[in-house]
């Protein structure tokens, strides 16, 4: 299927995850797959929940497309190229009076660069948007029961585990992630890893704040980019308890 939706256990409830790009399959096989949304759930879903999964696929593709801005990326490319060349030229012009002047000119010239904007030039967003375009061209929203026996087996296993899990949320998510890794189900493992990463306890947040960049380091662009996750190639919605 071009896209697959799973209802997975999550801390006593469930989440709907729609994977629309699987890198484990070769492109030729992906092209040959029938369009449609394969649904894997622990029980029967109501029409509203099916509609939610369809919406999740649409918005996830839209999120990946919205994160990519070719026009912005092109403008930034010219900005970086022109700015770097100009900084080098100005530094070279200031070199004869003394290297200290050259360093000064170079530093001043570099401040004209668009250092605060890193995402639109990231190749990850462009690759995700290209994949989203490919899926959007082929996929349909028609929900069909998941045909893959291996995936159904994984679903049964993870729900068996999810129903008897106890402990802290982080431990539960770690156990689910470990199960997915044991089953070589890496996309689902990545989802649980992302969810565990989003579960920051207040004490851990305070620790992270204490250990985080201090003073002027906070102004550096790569620190400012922290917390802005690039759109993943899956969609996520919360669903009811089973």
């Amino acid at each position: 299927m071009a896209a697959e939706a799973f209802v997975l256990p999550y801390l006593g409830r469930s989440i709907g995850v729609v994977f629309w790009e699987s890198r484990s399959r070769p492109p030729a096989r992906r092209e040959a797959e029938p369009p449609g949304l394969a649904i894997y759930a622990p029980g029967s879903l109501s029409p509203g929940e099916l509609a939610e999964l369809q919406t999740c696929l649409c918005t996830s593709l839209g999120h990946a497309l919205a994160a990519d801005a070719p026009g912005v990326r092109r403008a930034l490319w010219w900005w970086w190229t022109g700015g770097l060349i100009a900084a080098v030229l100005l530094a070279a012009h200031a070199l004869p009076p003394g290297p200290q002047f050259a360093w000064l000119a170079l530093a001043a010239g570099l401040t004209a660069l668009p250092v605060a904007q890193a995402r639109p030039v990231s190749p990850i967003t462009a690759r995700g948007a290209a994949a989203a375009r490919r899926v959007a061209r082929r996929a349909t929203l028609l929900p069909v029961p998941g045909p893959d026996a291996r995936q159904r087996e994984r679903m049964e296993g993870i729900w068996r585990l999810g129903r008897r899990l106890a402990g802290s949320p982080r431990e539960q998510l770690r156990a689910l992630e470990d199960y997915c890794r044991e089953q070589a189900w890496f996309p689902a493992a990545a989802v649980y890893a992302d969810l565990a990463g989003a579960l920051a306890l207040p004490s851990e947040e305070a620790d992270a704040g204490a250990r985080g960049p201090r003073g002027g380091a906070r102004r550096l662009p790569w620190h400012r980019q922290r917390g802005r996750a690039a759109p993943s190639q899956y969609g996520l919605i919360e669903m009811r308890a089973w």
Partner: protein
Amino acid sequence: MSSVATLRLYAAPLPRELGSLALVAPPPLVEEVRHAGALLAYHPAPLELAVLAPGALDPARLQGPAGVVLRRAAVAATMAPPEDQPALPGPQGAWYAALVTWGWLSILGAGESARSTLGGLWLAAGLPLVRRAYRRALAAHQGRAALGLAGAIDAAQVRVVEHAGLQRLAAMLAAALTGSGQGMSTAEAAWRRGETSPATSSASTGTQGGEHGALASGAAEGSGAAAAHGEPSTFAAPGFAAPDAAGSTELDSQLQRAALLCPAAGVGPLAAFYRALAAHRPPAAVWTPVPGALTGPPAETPAPAALWGTARPT
């Protein structure tokens, strides 16, 4: 999407005093509208609006209010720039002015130095040009979702689908009313028997209503009429300001219970909506009450097999 693009909207069950049903687009759903707009900009397709409902509703009755809520959500989603994109990178303000001035001075004092001329040209002319180009590209990018939605929103098809979590929520609210049914008015009891219309009974119910009763009657008269004309109302209604009545405590506790149940029912974004109603605050959502849309009392608590399905992995 080659066939159709889908968006969702909650038809949230409410206690009778508040009109029994509201179409709600909480902030996460508004964000979904923006993403769907980006998808539609790349791949124009028919737009379908799935109204997630606690039971069977008349789509014709919901078509108008749902379309208005969708339009308002689209406006809210596309007018504000996304939070994850800074307005403008690079130097700004006095430092930017100083760099441009330095560029002009470099050109003026370049003599025969090509390096100084080119570097100065970049700072004096190239930098403002590329900055402007970046701004235009960013504005075009941010407006793309609006363009995508503009082409599809008028022809959006409304489809009412039953949602198991909302069914559970409606059953809880109905059970709460039944549990506190001793204080039920004659009009509401008559409505429960199907003898009068819900709008009439909610407007005339006074024993449980208190502040909410006044609000509900306001909604039935003012907002209800506005909804009938396709205008969603908010809770900035005249009768809403001061929560003081002891009679509204029961209603507030029902709404609080509904908010607590939302995550387990899979409608987590609605929790803030119910909490705001219980706290007598305007909800941070695009929404409108649809009085009388529920053609009968919500179903009694369904059997687990009927609600959750029977197939469970062993």
